[in-house]
């Protein structure tokens, strides 16, 4: 068992709360930095995708996990970021500037969704975001002069300081640096009044307001930040995939993102990256498993989507706290051993109140 003896408020304000944190996260960082040297090329590419989806997940997590606003149209911001980046880079804008602009543009689009979101709650907000996702996908398809429509558009390789980053290792570092900076930014916000205001809005809007939190301002801010982060991830995604087309940003992508945050663990930064790892690993596992399944099942179209659905249902039923939640329970077991009580986290039957009454 770990006993933390606190001697100053800084220990609570710091990000790394104790020696153990510093050690393990330091180790993780070292492993990640060294990845291009010890990971085979294929897995490095997958890790790059995990980082990209992790950033996108971070955006959605901030909105859904921390502010409590559900969005099933987040692929729209992913796409806005991706297309914006592709267009700006093709127009000759330097890579870092293009990335920043893509994020800002996605954030601006976030305001457009955020404003009506102020009037609408719960499931109705989710429906509004769903509609928004469809609209944006259509815009990608129809606005051919800009996006190339359904025929798609190519994305140039990014160039930093005059040199093209065409190696997977180089691009991996760009994604790693972006992911670390984004994570630190989000963690900083969460330990400051802004992050606490988000959590307050999620848990009780009425008392948040009574304590001086301007709901409209913070909800809009949450949308903007969330959209910007997801847009930034989209920009990186475009470079990695090298070819964009509207159907990459459809409802399935939005659901993938939502799946990511729910399975990862709503309301935790770890959850964004754990969920991303899950999202990238699942198709690999399914392909591996296909060989052992009878042909009629293994070759069925939509097998992947089916498995995703089953896994999502399983998590919601049995592990609503997500992968991170499961890890917390395991860690509690390890820390409290042998005093862990079976059923410490057992849930009781719960009874749901109608949305109309909230």
């Amino acid at each position: 068992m770990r006993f933390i003896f606190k001697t100053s408020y800084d220990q609570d304000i710091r990000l790394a709360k104790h020696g153990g944190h510093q050690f393990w996260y330091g180790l993780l960082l070292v492993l990640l930095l060294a990845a291009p040297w010890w990971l085979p090329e294929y897995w490095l590419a997958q890790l790059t995708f995990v980082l990209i989806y992790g950033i996108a997940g971070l955006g959605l997590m901030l909105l859904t996990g921390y502010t409590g606003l559900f969005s099933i149209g987040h692929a729209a911001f992913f796409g806005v970021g991706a297309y914006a980046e592709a267009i700006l880079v093709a127009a000759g804008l330097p890579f870092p500037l293009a990335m920043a602009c893509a994020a800002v543009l996605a954030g601006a689009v976030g305001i457009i969704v955020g404003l009506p979101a102020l009037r609408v709650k719960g499931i109705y907000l989710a429906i509004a975001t769903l509609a928004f996702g469809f609209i944006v996908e259509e815009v990608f398809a129809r606005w051919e002069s800009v996006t190339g429509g359904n025929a798609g558009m190519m994305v140039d390789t990014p160039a930093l300081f005059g040199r093209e980053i065409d190696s997977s290792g180089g691009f991996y570092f760009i994604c790693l640096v972006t992911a670390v900076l984004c994570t630190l930014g989000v963690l900083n916000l969460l330990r400051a009044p802004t992050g606490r205001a988000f959590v307050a809005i999620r848990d009780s809007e009425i008392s948040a307001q009574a304590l001086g939190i301007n709901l409209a301002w913070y909800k809009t801010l949450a949308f903007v930040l969330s959209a910007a982060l997801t847009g930034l991830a989209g920009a990186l995604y475009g470079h990695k995939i090298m070819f964009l087309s509207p159907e990459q940003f459809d409802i399935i992508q939005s659901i993938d993102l939502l799946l990511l945050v729910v399975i990862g663990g709503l309301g935790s930064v770890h959850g964004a990256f754990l969920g991303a790892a899950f999202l990238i690993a699942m198709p690999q596992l399914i392909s591996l498993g296909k060989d052992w399944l009878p042909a009629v099942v293994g070759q069925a179209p939509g097998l992947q989507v089916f498995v995703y659905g089953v896994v999502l249902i399983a998590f919601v039923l049995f592990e609503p706290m997500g992968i991170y939640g499961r890890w917390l329970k395991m860690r509690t077991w390890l820390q409290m051993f042998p005093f862990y009580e079976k059923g410490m986290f057992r849930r009781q039957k719960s009874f749901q109140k109608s949305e109309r009454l909230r």
Partner: protein
Amino acid sequence: MTHEVVLELLNVEAAYGPVRALRGVSLQVRQGRIATVLGSNGAGKTTILRTISGIVDPRKGSVIYKGQDITARDPAWIVRQGLVHVPEGREVFPLLSVRENLLMGAYTRSDRDAVARDMEQVYAYFPILKERAGQDAGLLSGGQQQMLAISRALMARPVLMLLDEPSLGLSPLLTREIFEIIVRINRERGTTILLVEQNANMALNAADDGYVLENGRIVMEDTCAALREKEDIKEFYLGMKDAGVRGERRWKKRKTWR
């Protein structure tokens, strides 16, 4: 005259996640009598009723109703056996009218005529409900909602009624009125009642048998007549302190040994 035991709890332990709400509770409710469980919030009173009505599954122990083990059974089935729970905080259906709420109470019944007669009986107990029969239940005041919640339970023709803090949030006048009706229901219809209350004064006068619950355990049980005379009950639950000597001293400074 001994009355048979309608409901019995044997060593019930219940928890919400890591929080142990009940740590081994045993009690008996006798036919035709009113039993009350007293205790502050967090003592576990609501959990007892929820465990009986099947909303919460106990970790250990059993609930025996009319000689049958009903532990962790489906709540809807338990209602059909004549055991009805009036939850804490009223929980009327706010978007249904008063009349519809009452009909929902009779959901498990199929004898239409008897249901209509029971509805008339309920309107006789609470004339204000008849006045507001067509109004949405959400618009009623707290006291009226409590009357509706009790009436809704009556519509199920209960043999045993579980009442969770009927006085919660109500004025002294209304609390008295509600308790009068509760006693009337017991005297006129013979309905056995298990009442959980914070208002010890009302409960100890209205009920026949009492249990005192603290931190998930029964710490005292007796007839209410005996409990009313006990010094500890008088001081801690009925608020009858000797003014002057102990009056102004803070609890925290007194009970440092707890």
